[in-house]
Structures are given as structure tokens and as C-alpha cells.
């Protein structure tokens, strides 16, 4: 799981007059990963040491002059390059410089020059590459296969174009971006190079994040040819809430992760002041952070740090994107499924379907129409869900679920659940347990889509829904699992006493909890988890709860060691390994506390004796290992047979 860590302030901002401008023109890397050059929108350049959060030096141009492009650091000459008042010999759009590379100048009319050649002949004619009314929106440069590329996008009468300018030898390729809904043009771009391909990521105001991939190899040299259509694929459909996005930005972090700023958190209503990391492979939200103050839609990333201006500060937020796989996204693989379970699992749509269903055919017109129609449906439901009384909402949703093919409704189900959850959270009187259960039952939901559902269910003490979520969501974070565990145990303590008396358990061993609670606890035991993440949360359990939980685990263990066929306990019962893993984890988390707790003494002694007997068994087995191996050898020989009387037939 990717993570955002605690951020810190690099510097304060002096926002421009319009308040839509952060006051920062650009941030560029300096000599190493810990130094950045920040250029403000007027006339000063400041060098910061990031880890120290402090400026090392600063330069300002004369009053009356303006810096018109962010300063860049030329590591070869150890100089800073900055352009004031646009001018060299023609208006300059940007100067780009990669570490170890030569600075490149991109002119506003699309021409590209190496800074050196420009400075040696400052008066050279600069050609016009762009058409009339065409203007650069964004640019960067990239080194691919030791070839430097200047990449920039332009806009002309509502159309967007991508230019790939290769230096030495100079070639230029122009691509036309596919049109999104009329009137929408990309809000932000981000480019990266991997596997001989340049990868362009762009975000539209409707929350769609597209990716286009251009091979570096196939770049032809025929300049001025027609703009090629640029194929794209939809990576993410981000929730936009009401209206369109205005100031937002998406940055590629690695091949699987995208940082997005200025887009609402899927479970936090319409506020757009969030920084989120999404996994594009699984389309799951990996981490989210609320940014105080206004978001300007600006985002930079240098060496595992995100630089984001918000409100009146420029914050640095370290992040981490470990390589994600399905297994790590799911935590530990679920073990020991009984046949019934397997059947159940097989009716869960495959993970791929959930995730890539809409990615597979992103740009076909039919699909767009469907999205639109879903959008309309949502709009319609939106109204009723947000305002109508419980019964009506239930009816509406039921109708919708019965009406349509659930596969098509996947995004809708997520939106519905989110809306229901947020309304329930806002309005304590509103809760629709059966509707939510129905939505969970569609198996189109997962925790990332609707992160507050489980907590809501816990808050409303809807344990059935909790159980369903634990059963059907493959991506419940360990913190939430632990919260469920805590809640379940607490309930056990309140009502457990009576339960224990009521339930007619066999003479030994006695189950320390009632049947219903046992079922709930079993569900927790069955959940996938990763112990490093679970352990810190387990520590929050009180010692009393820990003792009870351990008693229950011990009971299960005893039961299993006595019983030859553990499957008999019901469809969803944890395996012996799962039980032992939990015992170990709980002991790890609370050992010191348990040692000090008098009531835990008996339990610990029991567990200790288990371990001792196991150790003894293993050591005894170790002693006879040699003999057993001999037996094995002898058996092999016997299989071959020293002597046998056989009947053969010849024809």
C-alpha cells in the first residue's frame, strides 16, 4: 500500500492578487534530492534545503523586471538559468534542464534551442512552429535512451496537441489528443519515460485520467506532417462531486501510482482539498490527506516527496509507493477455504473485472454514452438518496438493483453506497441497513470505493453488515479489521455472560463466548491481513479483551486438536494455521501486559504448555528423523521388491 507521511512546511506563500494563483511559478530540482529551487511568480528565486526546511540563498531581479519562467539549475556548469521578461530573441516559454543535461529553451511559438547555441548567437532567427491561435499549455523534457526530448502540449480552438521534439538530430512529431466532452481540455499533464515509451498522463475536469503511450523508437523524421491521432486509455475515473474540477493536478509517481490533488476524496463529500494516491492497476485509493486551505492545482514531485502549495504554505509531503501486487493489496491470502466457501468466492466477480471492466474499452463512443446515462441515473438517484426518507431510498435502490445488469452498475453501486454512507454519517437519524447490505451483496463494492462503510456499520452496531463487509471486501485495511475485532469483543463482554449460560456447549472445552459472537470473531479470523500492519492496531486492545480473545482462540485450538474434521464447525470457520497465527500475533502485541495480568496467568500457562508439548514433539521427531529416513529408504526398496512371484502373459 502506498502511503502519505506527515508533511511539513517548506515556506509560506504570497498568493497573487487573484487568489487563484499560489504565487509559485515553478519548483525545480537542484544539485541533489534534498535541494530545490523555488521561483515565485514575480521576481525572486530561492534555494531551499528541503530536509532543513530552510532557504539557503535567494536572488531577486530588479524592480520592474519579472521572471517569466522558473529558474533551472545547470549541474554541468553549476549555474542557474532564468529568463526575465520573456526575452531572449523571441518570447521564451520555458527553460528546461535535466540533471547532467544541457539546458534547452522552448520558445512560445514552439521552437527549441539548446541554451549554448542560443547564447553563442543570440540574434539568430527563431522559427514559428505553432499555428496561429495555438498556445503552449505545458512542457517538460525527458531523456530517453540518451536522447533528449522536449515534450509540450498546446491548445488550439478546443483541440489539444502533443509535440515531441527530439534534439540531436532534431525531429518533431505532433499528435492530436482525442476530444473529451465538448469544452473540456486537460487540466494537468505529467510525463514519464519507461520501457522505450514516453507515457503521458492527463487529467480532465470531469475526473477522467487518461494515459497515452508513445514509442520513442517509431518517431519518424518527417516534420510538418499531419498530427497523428494519439490513442489513449482511461486509467481512472475520479469522483468529482458536484460540477467539474477547476484546479486539480495528477502526477505519475510510478507505473502503478498517481498522485492527485484538487479532487474530492471519495468518502469525504464534495470538498476538493485532498491529496490522494491512487493505484491505477487496481483503481484503488491507497492514501489520502486533507490539505488545509485552497488548492491551486499545482503539484510537483521530486525523489519521493510531493511539493504542494495550499492555502498560504508550500508543503512537502513524503510518500512511498511500494510495488503493489494483488497479493499485497489483498494482504495475506485467505487460507483453507471449504468447498462452500470456494463456491461463494467463485461467484464474486473476478478482481480484474471489478478493476479493469471500464478500462478495457475506455474511448468508444458507446461507452461514453453509457457513462453519460449512468451519470444521469446517478444524478436522478442523487436527489432521492440525499433527501428522500429511508423507505423511499430503499425502494429506489431495490428497483435499480433489480432492474439492471449489476455488472453495468458497478460504478453506480459505489456512488450509491458512498452517498448513503455520507448521508448516514451526516444525519444520525438516517440509516438504511438492508439497502447497504444489498449493495454489499452485489459484490461490486470494495473498501477502497466506500471506505467509511464498515466504520459506519460499526458505529450503528450493524454487525450483520460488518460481517458481510468482512466477508466480501477483499481490501479491508488492518486498522478497520482491528476496529471490528474490538467492537465484536466488546459486545461479547456485554452480552456474553448470558450467552454463555444459555448455550448448551458440550462439557469440555467450554466456549468462552456466545455463538453469535463466535461467528463474528471467526469472520475476523478469516480476514486477509498482513501482520506488520495489523500488529500496531492490535496493541490498542485492552488487556481484558485480549484475555477473552485468547481464551476464545485457545478454545478453537483445543477444539481443532481434538476434532479430526474441523470443517464440521460450519461453513466459515478459520483454519488451524489462521488460529495459530492470531494467537502468536495477539501474544506478540500484548505479551508484557499479559504477564502482568493475574487473570491471564492460567491462560499463559496453558499456552506455554501447548508450546512446550509441541517443542517436545518436534524434538522427539528430530531424534527419530534419521530412523524415519531409513524407514523411508527401506520402503523404497520394498516397493521395488527383493522378491515377488508374478504372473506374466506372452502372446
Amino acid at each position: 500500500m502506498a502511503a502519505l507521511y506527515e508533511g511539513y512546511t517548506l515556506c509560506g506563500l504570497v498568493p497573487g492578487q487573484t487568489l487563484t494563483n499560489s504565487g509559485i511559478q515553478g519548483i525545480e530540482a537542484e544539485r541533489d534530492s534534498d535541494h530545490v529551487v523555488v521561483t515565485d511568480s514575480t521576481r525572486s528565486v530561492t534555494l531551499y534545503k528541503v530536509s532543513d526546511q530552510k532557504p539557503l540563498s535567494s536572488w531577486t531581479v530588479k524592480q520592474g523586471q519579472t521572471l517569466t519562467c522558473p529558474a533551472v539549475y545547470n549541474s554541468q556548469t553549476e549555474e542557474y538559468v532564468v529568463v526575465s521578461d520573456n526575452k531572449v530573441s523571441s518570447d521564451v516559454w520555458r527553460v528546461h534542464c535535466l540533471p547532467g543535461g544541457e539546458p534547452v529553451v522552448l520558445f512560445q511559438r514552439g521552437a527549441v534551442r539548446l541554451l549554448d547555441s542560443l547564447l553563442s548567437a543570440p540574434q539568430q532567427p527563431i522559427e514559428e512552429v505553432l499555428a496561429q491561435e495555438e498556445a503552449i499549455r505545458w512542457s517538460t523534457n525527458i531523456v530517453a535512451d540518451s536522447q533528449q526530448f522536449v515534450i509540450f502540449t498546446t491548445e488550439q480552438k478546443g483541440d489539444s496537441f502533443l509535440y515531441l521534439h527530439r534534439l540531436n538530430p532534431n525531429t518533431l512529431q505532433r499528435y492530436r489528443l482525442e476530444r473529451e466532452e465538448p469544452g473540456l481540455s486537460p487540466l494537468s499533464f505529467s510525463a514519464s519515460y519507461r520501457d522505450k515509451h514516453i507515457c503521458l498522463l492527463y487529467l480532465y475536469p470531469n475526473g477522467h485520467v487518461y494515459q497515452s503511450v508513445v514509442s520513442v523508437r517509431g518517431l519518424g523524421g518527417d516534420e510538418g506532417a499531419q498530427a497523428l491521432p494519439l490513442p489513449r486509455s482511461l486509467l481512472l475515473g475520479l469522483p468529482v462531486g458536484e460540477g467539474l474540477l477547476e484546479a486539480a493536478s495528477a502526477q505519475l509517481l510510478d507505473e502503478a501510482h498517481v498522485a492527485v490533488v484538487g479532487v474530492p476524496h471519495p468518502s469525504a463529500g464534495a470538498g476538493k482539498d485532498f491529496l490522494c494516491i491512487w493505484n491505477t492497476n487496481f483503481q484503488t485509493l491507497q492514501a489520502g490527506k486533507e490539505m488545509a486551505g485552497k488548492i491551486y492545482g499545482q503539484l510537483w514531485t521530486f525523489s519521493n516527496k510531493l511539493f504542494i502549495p495550499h492555502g498560504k504554505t508550500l508543503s512537502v509531503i513524503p510518500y512511498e509507493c511500494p510495488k503493489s501486487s494483488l497479493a499485497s493489496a489483498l494482504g495475506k491470502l485467505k487460507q483453507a477455504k471449504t468447498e462452500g466457501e470456494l463456491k461463494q468466492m467463485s461467484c464474486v466477480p473476478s478482481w480484474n473485472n471489478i478493476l479493469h471492466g471500464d478500462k478495457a474499452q475506455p474511448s468508444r463512443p458507446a461507452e461514453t454514452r453509457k457513462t453519460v446515462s449512468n451519470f444521469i441515473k446517478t444524478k436522478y438517484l442523487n436527489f432521492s438518496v440525499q433527501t428522500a426518507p429511508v423507505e423511499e431510498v430503499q425502494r429506489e435502490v431495490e428497483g435499480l438493483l433489480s432492474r439492471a445488469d449489476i455488472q453495468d452498475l458497478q460504478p453506480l453501486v459505489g456512488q450509491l453506497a458512498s452517498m448513503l454512507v455520507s448521508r448516514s454519517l451526516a444525519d444520525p437519524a438516517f440509516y438504511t441497513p438492508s439497502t447497504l447490505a444489498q449493495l454489499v451483496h452485489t459484490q461490486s463494492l470494495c473498501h477502497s470505493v466506500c471506505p467509511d462503510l464498515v466504520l459506519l456499520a460499526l458505529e450503528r452496531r450493524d454487525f450483520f453488515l460488518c460481517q458481510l463487509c468482512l466477508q466480501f471486501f477483499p481490501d479491508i485495511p488492518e486498522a478497520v479489521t482491528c476496529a471490528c475485532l474490538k467492537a465484536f469483543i466488546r459486545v461479547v463482554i456485554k452480552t456474553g455472560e448470558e450467552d454463555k449460560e444459555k448455550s448448551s456447549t458440550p462439557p469440555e472445552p467450554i466456549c468462552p463466548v456466545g455463538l453469535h459472537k463466535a461467528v463474528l470473531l471467526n469472520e475476523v479470523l478469516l480476514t486477509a491481513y498482513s501482520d506488520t500492519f495489523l500488529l500496531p492496531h492490535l496493541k490498542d486492545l485492552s488487556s481484558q479483551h485480549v484475555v477473552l480473545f485468547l481464551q476464545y482462540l485457545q478454545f478453537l485450538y483445543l477444539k481443532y486438536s481434538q476434532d479430526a474434521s474441523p470443517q464440521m464447525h460450519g461453513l466459515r470457520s478459520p483454519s488451524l494455521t489462521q488460529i495459530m497465527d492470531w494467537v502468536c500475533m495477539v501474544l506478540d502485541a500484548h505479551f508484557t501486559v499479559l504477564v502482568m495480568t493475574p487473570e491471564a496467568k492460567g491462560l499463559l500457562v496453558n499456552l506455554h504448555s501447548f508450546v512446550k508439548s509441541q517443542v517436545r514433539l518436534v524434538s522427539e521427531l528430530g531424534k527419530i528423523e534419521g530412523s524415519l529416513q531409513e524407514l523411508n529408504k527401506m520402503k523404497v526398496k520394498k516397493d521395488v521388491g527383493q522378491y515377488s512371484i508374478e504372473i506374466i502373459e506372452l502372446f
Partner: protein
Amino acid sequence: MGEFKVHRVRFFDYMPSAIRAMAFNSHTERLALVRADGALEIFNFADHYFQEKVIPGQDGRAVEALCWVGQRLFSAGLNGEITEYDLENLRPRYTVEAYGGPIWTIGSNKQGTLLMVGCEDGTVKMFEILKERIQFQRNLERQKGRIVSLSWHPSGTLIAAGMMDMIRIFNAETGHATHRMLVERGVGASKSREVVVWSVAFLSDYTIISGDSAGKVQIWDGLTGTLVRTHLVTKWDVLCLSVSQDESSLIAGTSEGTVVQFQFISSTVDQQEEEWVRTRTFKNHSHDVRALAHTETAVVSGGMDTQLVVRPLLDKVEKNTQESAMRKIALPHRSLVCCAKKAGLLLFQFPDHLEVWRVGESDGHGKPGDSLPVKRKPEKLIQLKGKGGDHIYSSALSPCGEWLAYSTVSSVRLYRLQYNNISITKVSKLPKDLCLGHQLCFSSDSTKLFASSRHSSVIVVALNQLECKYLHTLKPKSGSRQPVHLLCTSEDGKWLATANTDCEIHVYDLHKRKLHCTVPIYSSCPTAIAIHPTTSHLVVVHADQQIFEYSLVQKEYTEWSRKLQKQGLHSLWLERDTPVTHVTFSLKNPAHIILHDMFMFCIIDQSLPLPESKTLLYNQMTLRSLPEQERIRHSHAFKICKNFKHVMCVSLLEDHSLVVVERPLLDMMSQLPAPVRQKKFAT
């Protein structure tokens, strides 16, 4: 054809001894091979690699080296003695003490007049080869440290000697050492260990090639005593070298079980100068390759894993022919098992002892493919240890099971066995003439013992409860001096047939006590003979896989045999690479001949048509799948059963059940010591 009850016997723990040394005689195309227990074997490479002679070893006789001088064969060993073998009477002819401590190596000059041995005490001793013996001539200049390997320059003037840490060159005339070439030790931990030059070869262009314990094959200039080239071929030892006769190819055997070939060629196409280039690596052994021979067409190797491997060089033979096939000789080409048909007993012959077993019993019936429950387990009745340190050459158990005889190079011993109260009694007074027995055989009524003796003669001894009496000696008229290697009698006691390594087969009329006839000589050596109990036809199988049937009454080949020769044997039959070592007959069906090699047994039904060249020879599986009526149309005379592997004996008991004695190679391999450790992937 029908069902057979088979006693599948795997409790014969036969274990061949490791191969220690070999020498190839390119004139006679005979390979002499000596094993760790001192046993000598002679293979005829001109006749399908048939193992035609065996001289058993002796306790405590460790032969280190072999050397052919013309047709004479000499060996030397760590007991400090030089032995010449008598290949006609299959025994050491004489032994000479060299008085230099253990002998590591032996060699002769090209002219075949001198023999030299390298001794532990640092001397190279020269012996003059005389007609009937060898005589000590002189010592070369004595060195410090043992002489491990020797090679004589073809001109006879120089001798190279491999020692510890060095190679010495001696002037053969003066006996003085002229050069000393230091051999580098191994790196790392082995730096402190002396390097042993296990093998040297002196080529006619005065190049010396050495193989040593540091894993190097080194090329030296023998005139200047300088190192020309080093090839590191193994992390372990290079134990032996062999050079082809034309000196264009060289092979080196290593402790890893590999054989590395070097060729004297120009390393690049346009380069004129030739040098020794490492070309091929063969890995046919799991353990040390201790002995090598480079024949004109093949690499012959043997070592710790006891198998003799003949690996043809594909640039010297025609591809995809029988000649180009690799051969592994793992089991002896003679029978070490004797079956007492009437008593259901098996005699197993080991080098130093004999075992008598009774096969098990089962009263169950079953379908083909079933294993029957064993009611009575097989039982080892007697284990008889050989006397006097000489290893056993030949042994026989009488059909009734009451007589047991075995022979060594020096004597024949006869025992009387009783089973109701198991006892074994040595028959103490044997006739004086019965002192040699290359082959032993009892008559079917167990009243006579036949022992083959010198010059292919057979001594006949009468047995009864009270005494053992010499009757007479049967002699062939051919005057062959070769030993008999096959001996058999007929069921009715009338005939005795012998076969010797001159390929002669003589049949004696036992009633008339004289030679009855001599079967026309065929070019390939007989590997198994038997006389049919009712028709008195002699069936002979040769090393080239040919089968002949000879009528003893008519003194001519039978009609069936002629037909077989006219039509020719099936090509797949001829391509088998292990000889038929035993022939027997069915008592139920006189038309059946039962024979076996190492990988199959076969029942030849003489009443059925012979397989034609296009018919499927191994057709048992096909026949099984056909309905019964159709089988007869597809049947042919050769019923080959491949259910059994590494077969040492197939015999028919009186109750018509078959006894198949197998010795799985895996079982033998598992008894070998661990090979040198080699780093394999991911270990």
C-alpha cells in the same frame, strides 16, 4: 502363448569391483581390463565387445597398471610384483618381485624388448623380456619420491616419469635424469599438498603430456623441458591419459567422471601451426575415471562406477550405425547364476563366496500382471566362503541340488549338500586330474561332473555317495590351446558340448566317450549353447546375435536354422548390444527355446513364422491389444518380454515356472561410495 509364473529375484547382491586399469592391444583388438579386486577381463573389440576371458582376482592383490607386449600381458601392483598372465590357461603365468616397494606404473618400449616399472622407492626398474620370463636388467638413476607414471619415447632413447610435484626425463641408455620439470600445485588449500602427476605421455615429436592431481593437463616440450601450455580441466584430479595411435588425439579422465578430449589441430582455420586444443567432454561416469584407452574409433573408459563405457568418436565412425552407438558394459557376459531346476535352488557366484537360495512359494492364482502372495519366502540356505584367498572362477550346482562344485585358478572343490538338516560336506579326495576347471557342469542325473581343462579338454568325473572317481578326459582334435568358456550336457546324458574362444564348438558322445562332431566354425564367438532335451539339437547363440540350430544326429544345421539364415534375423534383433548369456528349453513345448540377454528374455516358438524385416519385432504390446482370433495372424516366432531389466539369469524350473534373476543397476549404484562433490545449480 500363455501365462507364466515368474519368480522375480532381486536378492542377488552382485557387485562388480571398480575398474582400476586397462590396456588396449590394437593388433589383436583386445582390451585388457583389471578391477580393484585383481580380476582381469579380456574383451574382444573385434567381436562385439564380447568379454571372452576372465581371470579371477585374489585377496590383497591390487593391480595398478597393465601393459601389453605383443600378445603377452603384464601387470604390476602395490604388492610390488610384476605378473605375466597365461591367457590360455587363465591364470597368472609367473610373478616377479621388483624389490622397489609398491609399483605404481608399468610400461614397455616400442620394440617390446624391455619392460619398466615405477616404484615407490623412487626407482625406475628395467626388465628384459625373454621368451618365457622377464629378467631384471638395471635401475635408472634413483629419485627422491615415488614414480607414479612412466612413458617411453617411441624412439626408445628417453623416458618421462611423473612424480610428486615434478616430471623427470631420463636418458634410457645412461639411466641419468636429464630434465626436471616442476609441476605447479593447486591453488588455495591444496597449495600445501603435493601434486601427483598421475599420468604422462611421451609423443614422438618430443612433446610430453601430463595429467595431475591439481586438475591440469599440461603440454611440455620434452627436449627443452619447458612448459608449453596448461589446460585446467577439473577442480579435482586428472587420473589418466591416453593418446591415439596416430598421436592426433588425447583423452584425459577426471575424478568428476568426465573424459576430456584434446586434438592436435590448428586452432583457427587460417593458422598453419597445430596445437593441442581441448575439443570434447564426455560425461559417462558418475565417479572417478581411473582407466582409459583411446582406440582408433572410440574412447574407452572405466573407473569407480564399475561400468566399462565404449564411446565411439563420431568423426571416426559412420553416424547412426550400430558402430556409432555408445556401449555400457555393466554386467559380465557369463552366467554367475546356476539354477538347480529340479530342486528349485539358485546358486549365486560372488568373487569370494557362494550362496545357495531356495526360491519362494505361492499357492495363489492370479491374472497376468498380478503379484501373487508369497506363502514361503525365499531362503538363503548356504553361504560358502572361498578358501585360500583365490577368487572363484566358475561354479555349478547339480540339478538335484545335492552337489556343489567351484573352481579357482589353483583348484577345484566339490561339496555335498543336504537340505533336510542343512549341512555341507567337502568331498575331500578328488582325483588328481581334476585340478583345473574353467567351466564346471553336472550331468542332468547328477552322477557326473564335467570340468573343462587345459587346451579345451574336458575331464569327466563320476560321483556317487561314496567316492568321486576320474573317468576319462575328452579332447578335441583341433589342437586349440584356448580355454573352454561354455559347457553343457544334454538332458538324456548322451551329449556334452563345449565352446572355446577360438569359436570352436565340439560335441562329445558321452556313451562312446569320444568326440562326436565339431560344429562348423562361425566367425563370432559363441555366447550361449544348449542341447535340446528331446530332439538333440544344439542351439548356439553368438556374440553377433546370430542363432544356429545344429542337429547332432544328422551332423548338420537343421531346416529351421537354414530358414533362419536364409531369411536373416530381424535388424532390431541384431542391433541389441548385450549378448545372449543363457539358452534353455521348455519341457512342456519342445518347439520353445528360451534365451535372454541383459534387457529382455525371449521365447522362440519354432512352430511360428519368422519375423520378416518389416514386421514389428517387439510386438507383445500390439498382440495384447488385439482380439484373440487376430493374434495368430500377427504372431511371429520371437516372443520378447521386456518386463525385466538387468537380467542375470532366466531359467525354467521343473514346475514350469520361470526364475528371472535381476540385478538393477540402481541398486548397484547405490552401493558405490559418494562421488566427488560438485557444485550444481542451486545447491
